[in-house]
């Protein structure tokens, strides 16, 4: 009885403490939960992986802002790593807005450091051959149209200021239709713009990485194959990391996997507390009725 009374009157600060610990402990201990992969993520992974046969490049677009980066940054890392390890030519691109550029840069640095500038087959990663970092160019929609017609002409230089023309990776890239896949990682509706313009107009396959909140509304586009695949929220990113690990045999710190462990703890904690709260509610109610 005492316990239920305590639960009923529980100071919310205990709950705050529990939430804080549920996030911190998995982060420090590198804790992980088993991850089951869902079809949208698997489809995306398979599509990206198939590019190693055609050698058509992948474009990773970091179209998000720092506020959604906890959820979305791991996606960029997992994709970039996959492309490098599987020997797929890859473009890193900050997207149509200025904010993404810095986040794409973080993805570049983090992943390259993690794999120590070496691919799975032992070759070292060479800029210009294995990947190219695209700069920010203003113009919004006109940029997509430009990429559709004249890829090199739209950007002219890469993010380091060197002429794109001189990079070996550009030999087979003239316009968007030479691109194997675009994966737009965004927390906003900008992914739809890529879907409509790059996908429908220029016929380039488009995949998407998005926040858990936006994922629900993208299911219809997955059904119509307007998006070839999707990573939905942190869970999607964790699934992608898991696919990387199991299929490419690489063992690195799974950023989203660990964050997902925190998520699991918090979700389960909330569910557990709600159930306890309800039990105490009923126990106390019955007790009161008995006394009446």
């Amino acid at each position, binding site marked *: 009885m005492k316990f239920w009374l305590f639960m009923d009157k529980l100071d919310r600060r205990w*709950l705050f403490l529990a939430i*804080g610990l549920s996030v911190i402990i998995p982060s420090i201990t590198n804790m992980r939960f088993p991850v089951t992969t869902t079809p949208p993520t698997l489809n995306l992974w398979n599509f990206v992986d198939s590019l190693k046969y055609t050698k058509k490049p992948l474009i990773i677009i970091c179209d998000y802002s720092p506020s959604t980066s906890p959820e979305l940054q791991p996606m960029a890392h997992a994709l970039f790593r996959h492309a490098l390890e599987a020997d797929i030519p890859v473009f890193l691109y900050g997207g149509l807005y200025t904010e993404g550029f810095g986040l794409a840069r973080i993805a570049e640095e983090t992943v390259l450091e993690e794999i120590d500038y070496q691919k799975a087959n032992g070759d070292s990663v060479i800029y210009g051959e294995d990947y190219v970092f695209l700069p920010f160019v203003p113009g919004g929609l006109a940029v997509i149209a430009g990429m559709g017609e004249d890829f090199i002409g739209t950007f002219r230089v890469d993010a380091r200021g060197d002429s794109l023309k001189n990079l070996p990776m550009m030999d087979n890239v003239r316009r968007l239709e030479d691109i194997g896949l675009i994966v737009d990682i965004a927390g906003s509706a900008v992914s739809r713009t890529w879907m409509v313009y790059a996908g429908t107009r220029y016929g380039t396959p488009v995949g998407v990485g998005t926040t858990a909140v936006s994922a629900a509304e993208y299911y219809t586009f997955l059904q119509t194959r307007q998006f070839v695949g999707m990573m939905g929220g942190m869970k999607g990113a964790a699934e992608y990391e898991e696919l990387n690990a199991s299929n490419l045999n690489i063992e690195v710190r799974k950023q989203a996997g660990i964050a997902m462990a925190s*998520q*699991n703890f918090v979700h389960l904690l*909330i569910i557990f507390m*709600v159930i306890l709260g*309800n039990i105490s*509610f*009923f126990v106390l109610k019955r007790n009161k009725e008995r006394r009446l």
Partner: protein
Amino acid sequence: MFLKRTLPLLIVFLLGLAMIIQFYIPHPVSQNFYDSMAEWVRISGAFALILGLSSFFYVHTRKLARKNKDSFYSGVAILCLIGMAGIGIFGRGGINGWLFSNLYRSIIVPLDATMFSLLSFYIASAAFKAFKARNAMAFALLVTAIIVMLGRVSFGSFLDGIVEWILVYPNTAAQRGIILGIGLGMIATSLKIILGIERSYLGGGD
């Protein structure tokens, strides 16, 4: 009286009507009108910040003058305001300057993100305190919330089907109902404002 009340109402009426009609005309003349009005609203709106500032300084200078424990904090607020605005306007590089962007990145951004992240604590405490099966409807709310939450965790994938069903059907239905109501209400209220029936935005008095 005309200048005080009738003229503002007339401006709202004429401009409102013009903007409604403008929507249906793709001709560049109409587009230019739209652009100019947007610019006018933007320009005149910029001055409103000065009203906010006057209120800000009114409140905080008075607290400062009272010389009690509130004074220190008001002093901090005033100093931060003047510092930030001064560096942004007069500092080298303006809003792209080294100091201004570093101040932005290490004061406003972390404060913003941290305030926002308090929500993760509050969403838990709200769930704990409010999700009590007091009646059948509260029970429905609680159960759906738990199912959806379970569906979000790693090993909750078996619930994906039902979670998607809840989101796509009952959830969409209720949201559509609410949105339709809001849409009608918005149209009606906008019309009332244009017609001068709703005029509280002018403030009190005659």
